[in-house]
């Protein structure tokens, strides 16, 4: 099969020979199920085994150190024996503050939920104001910078004086602790909305309300969620301390009460739960953020 070369202004162009290149069709072979399950098992093992080893070693070390007579803290075996009832029956309710751990934790979580939700709404609102208006920023930013450095518990006496009750005071302390990172991060997010998006909104002539919902919130969402995540961590820190002082049902006071009755094992169990719940709260907000900001960060 011959094809003439095309001559054009001294440039010779050879048409590519239409050779019968062998076409090989590769049928995708299904990976045998044993292979894929084996891989999942290996991946899981690679994640789970190292922390398990570390925890076991630490427990062993703790057991050895605290087993000696005259040790001030109980070893893990004693903690388990002392708190077996609390672990396996978290739902008992003998009236007053003599309740299972579930009730203490749920009381604390309810306070956090209320205070934190208020902080989220108010914080995002104020953050939008400060991010959007130069005058609001100049007026409010110095105030925020000073107020945010006040430790959570320093607010408690003032709150008690104002509300004359423990419950709203604890909620106020959570509110005032978690609001600052939400305000500051939201304001940064609003200030960082690309001019391009503002131009698009201007050309389309979105009104301020549509601009808020359709441009501002989605564009600032990654920043807002950073603030919300810091905020939830801080509010969990604050509630334990606040509850120690206000008393009543709640994990904070449970710890304080255990200390007063010298139930050291109960303190250790409570700390374990506090840690786990703090971790879960943090992950929950982070997961929510990933869900909501899906696709926002990439442009």
């Amino acid at each position, binding site marked *: 099969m011959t094809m003439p070369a095309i001559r054009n202004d001294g440039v010779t162009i050879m048409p590519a020979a239409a050779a019968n290149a062998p076409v090989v069709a590769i049928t995708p072979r299904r990976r045998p199920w044993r292979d894929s399950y084996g891989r999942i098992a290996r991946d899981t093992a690679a994640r789970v085994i190292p922390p398990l080893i570390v925890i076991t070693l630490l427990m062993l070390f703790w057991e050895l150190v605290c087993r000696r007579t005259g040790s001030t803290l109980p070893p893990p075996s004693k903690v388990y024996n002392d708190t077996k009832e609390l672990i396996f029956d978290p739902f008992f309710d003998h009236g007053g503050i003599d309740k299972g751990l579930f009730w203490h934790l749920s009381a604390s979580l309810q306070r956090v939920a209320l205070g934190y939700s208020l902080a989220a709404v108010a914080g995002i609102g104020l953050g939008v104001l400060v991010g959007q208006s130069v005058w609001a920023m100049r007026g409010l930013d110095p105030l925020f910078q000073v107020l945010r450095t006040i430790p959570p518990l320093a607010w408690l006496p003032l709150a008690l004086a104002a509300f004359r009750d423990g419950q709203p005071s604890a909620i106020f302390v959570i509110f005032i602790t978690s609001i600052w990172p939400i305000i500051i991060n939201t304001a940064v997010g609003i200030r960082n909305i690309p001019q391009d998006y503002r131009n698009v909104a201007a050309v389309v002539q979105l009104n301020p309300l549509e601009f808020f919902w359709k441009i501002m919130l989605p564009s600032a969402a990654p920043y807002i969620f950073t603030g919300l995540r810091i905020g939830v961590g801080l509010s969990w820190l604050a509630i334990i301390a606040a509850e120690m002082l206000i008393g009543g049902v709640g994990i904070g006071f449970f710890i304080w009460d255990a200390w007063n009755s010298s139930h050291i094992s109960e303190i250790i169990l409570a700390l374990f739960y506090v840690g786990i719940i703090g971790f879960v709260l943090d992950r929950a907000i982070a997961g929510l953020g990933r869900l909501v*900001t899906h696709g926002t960060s990439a442009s």
Partner: protein
Amino acid sequence: MSAYLKLDHIDKVFSRGAASTEVLKDITLTIDRGEFVSIIGHSGCGKSTLLNIVAGLTTATMGGVLLEDHEVNSPGPDRAVVFQNHSLLPWLTVYQNVRLGVDKVFAKTKSRAERDAWTLHNLSLVQMVHAKDKRPSEISGGMKQRVGIARALAMEPKVLLLDEPFGALDALTRAHLQDSVMALHHKLGNTILMITHDVDEAVLLSDRIVMMTNGPSATIGEVLEVPLPHPRKRLELATNAAYLKCRQRVLEFLYERHRFIEAA
């Protein structure tokens, strides 16, 4: 009959504190309905500022813009912009990005179903219906710019403003999109004002080329009519005498008479 779009003695001064820079000086230009006009000049000559003034995103210090004898001061969908970097909203799908403008512009005049159909129609004009449910991060640069064009077209603008629309694309994609824009202009007869720094692009697409002098105080140096009939074919033009002459004129203007002097 007065002009469709008129840029009337536009001056633009940027001032920061005591220092002020005159970017544009005495720009006067009239554009007829259905005309394709390109503005070409070296970077920093203020051509993007000029487009922003027409779009209403920036205001002129002196002079103004008249569209069908009405002064325009603020941005609006009658002067839709295709931005250089596409500016699609990353959290919306391709369809939703176009629909955003459609919903605003035709809120009262079209029903929900009609707005849906109109959005899809405009996506089909740029051959992007197949990706309507993808997000901007999942499609290529050329596709994003197509969606940007669809978003602007869907607002049924009186003037379509293109701000270096193909600047960020590779040469092959750019040629492909230029052909699309040519076809759309031929089909829909929009009035288009395009900013570019690509001589071939300007000559290929425009009816008239506005050449700007270097800033500061940039102004219109020369306006060149491109006497080539539409539709134009890229390959045929490569040897067309009129095309080469136009190209020569623009190159001479840019590289001989108004050579770009970089700040040393």
